């Protein structure tokens, strides 16, 4: 007997909601990125919960792939942020238009 999977799913939903709220509230691009990581982790928790629920290894393999894609995404996103900082010493979401052309 362990914790029922509904509790994990509720926790993941709350974490996803918090990440989405933070993504909309904050204007610092770095913190917005961290909120995206929060949402990715919520989905990972859902994957692992369903893997246990359905007795299926596929959910855990998918978490592995999500980890790899998240790492690649963070690398490219932070490089874009660094490129943005070269132009202007501020990192708010309003400054992204300076990256064009």
């Amino acid at each position, binding site marked *: 007997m362990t914790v029922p999977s509904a509790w994990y799913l509720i926790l993941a939903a*709350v974490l996803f909601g918090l990440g989405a709220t933070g993504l909309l509230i904050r204007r610092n691009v770095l913190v917005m990125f961290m909120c995206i990581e929060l949402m990715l982790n919520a989905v990972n928790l859902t994957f692992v919960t369903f893997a246990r629920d359905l007795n299926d290894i596929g959910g855990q393999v998918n*978490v592995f792939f999500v980890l790899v894609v998240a790492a690649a995404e963070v690398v490219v996103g932070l490089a874009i942020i660094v490129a943005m900082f070269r132009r202007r010493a501020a990192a708010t979401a309003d400054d992204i238009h300076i990256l064009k052309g």
Partner: protein
Amino acid sequence: MLATALLADSSGQALAHASAWAVYVVGAAMIITGALGVILLRNPVHCALMLVITLFGIALEFIDQSADFLAAVQIIVYAGAVVILFLFVIMFLGVDRKEAIRSEPTRFQRPLAVVLGVVVLVEILALSRVDHWATGAPSQAGALDGPGQNVQKLGQSLYTGYLLPFEMTAALLVIAVVAAVVLSRRHNQSAGEMREEDQEEVLSGTAASQSDHGESQ
């Protein structure tokens, strides 16, 4: 004799049950605290440290669901690499000063964001109640329980059924590394021109030295 054995067994089960709940509650508290910290704290360095707390809480929940390998990878990759990368960029750019969180670019943005976040949460919870997201078909990609370690089954599934996606993640990582180098390189026009001039100087210098060499001979 049998009664005491049964009692011991049930007390052991109760202990395992209680410890699973304790791990869940501690992990949930860490996750919620860290997430609120990421959202609400002003200093980006503090936000990154709170993100570490959330990631450790997620790793606890993974362990509670006997996903041992993923818990280890979660800590190594996320807390060890991704958050460190965040901190490197924060320190490198020198943005560890407080964000002017009071200044809003547009009116009603923040209350509207909170309302939208609550709507997202309610939608997820409502949809999970009214609809069946999972097909309910068990063990499509292989059984999770049974003999063998979690790592062993995960590796076998990864290198047999998911081999092509696994190879594609290798390509994705290489592309990400190249993209990071290209994006974070200083690419002003004068640098390239200077390099060509330097090359010409070097070439002419070697040509002159060669001609000197030839004259001396």
